[in-house]
């Protein structure tokens, strides 16, 4: 019979050694090994592989990498803000927003955000008549104001686009969105301070395709403007500091972003950078751009 002369397949032999083969097959293998020099050689080879793998010295993390990772974690820790969404909302006065309605250069699709369940529950709570219309109006206005504020900042950065060229220095708005640039001093919401752009973190999981990504970003901006979302706003992050600064500058080519968000993309941590009507999704290490999209509402 051909069967009893057949050698043992290396993978089968390896599984036999792990106790994954039992019964009569295991007995046959054991009997064969007792009398087969060739298969005994394979078994020795398997033992040798394990020994070789174990003998590879365990690497020590280079100091530079340890520093890099701890700095990245320190940046994450620094970005964790004490400012809660409630604090943001209290600063985003509806009375302040009303005069901006007519000046808003862009509006977003208000109704799509109302259906974004779980994020803007207070807006989706049943309202009657004028209350509901008012919620719709304010949502659109708040989002438009945010984008307008971002656009205002961009318009005044000048050709260099560099924060360092901003004679006014970093400015923080009362309403939440950050504006900067020479013209920011005259912005009604401009308040001397720090943080030229808003950094938030959320558990949003952004996803492709680009059209879906863009819609998610616009919802996020609207929710953020109205301050009812689950984001944590970090007001202490200085555009001149840290790896995030250089990453943002690289992605936006020096333009001030409308929003930088620590979130996820397809369940992986990612930084979301919104600027000039575009969104770029980058790895936290800024080594790769994962996705891009243009926002329908434009710059």
């Amino acid at each position, binding site marked *: 019979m051909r069967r009893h002369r057949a050698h043992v*397949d290396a993978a*089968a032999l390896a599984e036999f050694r792990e106790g994954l083969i039992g019964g009569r097959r295991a007995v046959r293998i054991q009997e*064969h090994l007792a009398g087969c020099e*060739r298969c005994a050689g394979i078994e020795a080879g398997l033992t040798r592989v394990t020994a070789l*793998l174990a003998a590879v010295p365990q690497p020590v*993390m280079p100091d530079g990498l340890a520093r890099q*990772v701890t700095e990245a974690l320190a940046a994450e820790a620094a970005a964790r803000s004490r400012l809660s969404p409630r604090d943001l909302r209290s600063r985003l006065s509806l009375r302040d927003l009303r005069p901006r309605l007519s000046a808003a250069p862009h509006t977003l699709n208000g109704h799509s955000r109302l259906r974004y369940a779980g994020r803007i529950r207070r807006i989706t709570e049943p309202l009657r008549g004028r209350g509901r219309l008012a919620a719709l109006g304010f949502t659109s206005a708040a989002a438009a104001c945010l984008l307008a504020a971002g656009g205002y900042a961009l318009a005044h950065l000048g050709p260099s686009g560099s924060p360092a060229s901003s004679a006014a220095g970093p400015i923080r708005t009362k309403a939440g969105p950050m504006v900067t640039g020479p013209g920011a001093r005259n912005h009604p919401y401009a308040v001397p301070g720090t943080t030229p752009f808003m950094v938030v973190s959320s558990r949003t999981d952004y996803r492709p395709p680009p059209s879906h990504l863009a819609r998610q970003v616009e919802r996020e901006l609207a929710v953020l403007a109205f301050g009812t979302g689950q984001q944590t706003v970090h007001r202490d992050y200085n555009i001149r500091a840290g790896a995030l600064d250089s990453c943002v500058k690289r992605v936006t080519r020096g333009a001030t972003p409308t929003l930088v968000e620590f979130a996820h993309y397809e369940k992986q941590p990612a930084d979301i950078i919104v600027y000039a009507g575009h969104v770029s999704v980058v790895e936290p*290490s800024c080594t790769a751009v994962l996705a891009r999209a243009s926002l329908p509402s434009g710059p």
Partner: protein
Amino acid sequence: MESQPDLTDAELLDRHLRGDGEAFGQLFLRHKDRLWAVALRTLCDPEEAADALQDAMVSAFRSARDFRGDSAITTWLHRIVVNASLDRLRRKAAHATTTGDEQALELLASQSGTPAADPASSRDVSLDVTAALRLLPPQQRAALVLVDMLGYPVADAAAVLGTSPGTVKSRCARGRARLVPYLRHLREGAGTEAEGGAGGTEDTDTDEPRNRTATGSV
């Protein structure tokens, strides 16, 4: 950042969740070498491993609140690093340029059957072993890195990989079988016969010969 050896991993994580800005960094520093070993040995590329490790730590920082305590904190951290490394491998495979692997294969095949020029050179051995690891499918590679290279008990490796001990054993077995012909030259007094059937992910129990040198299984 100085370490705080008197605090347990759980205490550091708890401090992190309560807003201590340095606690998670301390946790990372405590386990950095093992985490680096996992990433580096799985990816076989220092730059990729560095990026994967940083992404993993940032992800762990952000998702620490989701840790339910159903495993050791080190297991949780290792799992995140392994998953980040495997994700990178899969992404690389999706945009595969096989030049590097083909060169490694050719190099190892050319050395097959002849003893290493300097068997005592541990660096040569390490290079050959890590080059051979690149040839394994990601799941087998990760299992062997944890069990054979880093000495994890099978049960612990299974917890890190999120699978059963039996599956880990199977992946290790198949991975070792695949490596045998590519590491033969590292054995003293290596024979000239080619072993049979070292490759393949599905080894069927059959008497049919696969090729001239391989023969059916018992």
